[in-house]
């Protein structure tokens, strides 16, 4: 640029070439991304109705139709539905929303546009973590509210049960979020994103004891469900919210906390590898 070239546009004058030192800090970018992500979620009618609202609606439907029956001594079917739906809600706002949302962002060019800016990829994923945490906690709080108001769901009374709730929540949402990011690479258009992500999610909810009590599911379906995180998340949540004697309803007749943590940890590790291998900032073509 020559000395005569003037800054005719208003604003701060052009400075020397910026070095990495003047880059916005990662935490700032992550906060900015998180804010945008959460705002987008709660303004998106599809996300609010279908991702956020549907689990509560289904809980009211299933709970009102079947909830009065007794599943075991001192355990109502309504309580089973409420605790299982909390696991389904976690998967909805993590797996389903990320799967559909990132596929859409990839196909409409949002990801490519962000890749063209100096934003580091870590800020993008940190923003997704913020979004999943905020939306999934709100979702869980809503389901706990509906469950305690209408279906005799009992909030954990001991620190031990809250601790179980915390680790099942964190490991479960992390595993589902990573699966969602990986699955977002499957749809090839915005229009196909919803069916491709929602179909396996719906099947998984049926066989994992969310829509139908797990003890009513045929054995081979139980075995299939045991390969995926949702069955273990639902079982973990039942151990948090149901009376101790409800464990007799489980196939193993105990809560299997160790196995639950192990399966979720394996899915987190596998999901992480899958995400690193498959994540693309641009669509094919």
């Amino acid at each position, binding site marked *: 640029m020559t000395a005569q*070239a003037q800054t005719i546009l208003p604003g701060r004058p052009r400075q020397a070439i910026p070095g990495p030192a003047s880059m*916005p800090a990662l935490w700032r970018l992550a906060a900015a991304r998180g804010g945008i992500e959460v*705002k*987008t979620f709660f303004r998106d009618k599809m996300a609010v109705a279908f991702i956020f609202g549907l689990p509560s609606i289904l809980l009211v439907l299933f709970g009102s139709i079947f909830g009065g029956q007794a599943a075991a001594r001192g355990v109502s079917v309504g309580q089973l539905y409420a605790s299982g739906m909390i696991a389904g809600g976690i998967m909805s706002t993590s797996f389903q929303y990320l799967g559909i949302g990132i596929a859409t962002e990839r196909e409409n060019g949002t990801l490519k546009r962000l890749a063209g*800016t100096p934003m580091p990829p870590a800020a993008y994923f940190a923003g997704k973590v913020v979004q999943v945490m905020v939306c999934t906690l709100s979702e869980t709080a809503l389901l706990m509210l509906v469950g305690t108001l209408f279906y005799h769901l009992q909030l954990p009374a001991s620190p031990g049960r809250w601790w179980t709730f915390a680790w099942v929540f964190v490991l479960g949402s992390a595993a589902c979020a990573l699966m969602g990011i990986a699955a977002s690479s499957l749809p090839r258009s915005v229009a196909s994103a919803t069916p491709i992500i929602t179909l396996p999610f719906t099947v998984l909810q049926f066989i994992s004891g969310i829509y139908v009590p797990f003890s009513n599911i045929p054995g081979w379906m139980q075995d299939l469900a045991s390969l995926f995180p949702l069955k273990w998340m639902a079982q973990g949540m039942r151990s948090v919210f149901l009376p101790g004697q409800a464990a007799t309803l489980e196939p193993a007749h105990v809560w299997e906390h160790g196995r639950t943590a192990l399966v979720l940890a394996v899915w987190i590790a596998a999901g992480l590898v899958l995400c690193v291998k498959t994540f693309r900032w641009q669509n094919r073509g």
Partner: protein
Amino acid sequence: MGSETAVMVRDLGKRYGDVTAVDGIDFDIGRGEVFALLGPNGAGKTTTVEILEGFRHRDRGTVAVLGHDPGHPSRAWRARIGIVLQLASVGPELTVQEMVRHFAALYPQSRDPDEAIELVGLTGKARSRIGGLSGGQARRLDVAMGIVGRPELLFLDEPTTGFDPEARRHFWDLIRDLRTDGTTIVLTTHYLDEAEALADRIAVIAAGRIVAAGDPGSLGGRSAAAARVSWTATGPAIRTAGEKQGRTTVETTTPTQLIAELRQQFDGEIPGLTVTRPTLEDTYLELTAKATS
């Protein structure tokens, strides 16, 4: 590092399977220049620009963009370039202001977001949801997002598609202002009048090669090309090179002399006289037709 050169391209090549998209091209873009890349769809234009933008890897050749290899984009390098992609509107749930502010936050020394919105003429829509913008307004938002980081080098891909004539003129003024501010601009467009109005230099790419490069006035030997003199052929015609629908047209490198002769022949006004040189569009169509035949 050549501080006067913004973009340097030597023997750039890119293949997709058996298809050669870019077949050994060379060009330089000087700092502060507006450089237009023209070419039919599938000529290698987008591939070339995407390699310069750091979105695609090349198969061969040397490329430097602001002194850096775009094959290895760094954050510091990305902070110095702006990219206006040819995309549908994104983030329909956010407002114009939220989106531009967010993009401003990603850059180390960005422009005031409200100023960027004003520059593209969207101040009245700043608080509107992006999903409710018209096509032309969404394009202008794209441009605001591209310039809010105060780039030294700005890539514009078909920037005025969907603009009404007034919005285009307004946009051209914005590009001229950015150029005066020292921004180097790489423009791809299908509108030849746009290239002619804005570009300091034009390169025409066809079938993966650059078939002509130069300033808009002399591209493809345009300024030296024969003039076309045409008149209504009533009365004595002198060189009837081509007669069509009652008009005679002659291509000549000495149009002034021809007109003097005609004036004598007609003894006064020459009926229906026109003198034209090939437009940029004529030159462009001829160049690309030759390259693809």
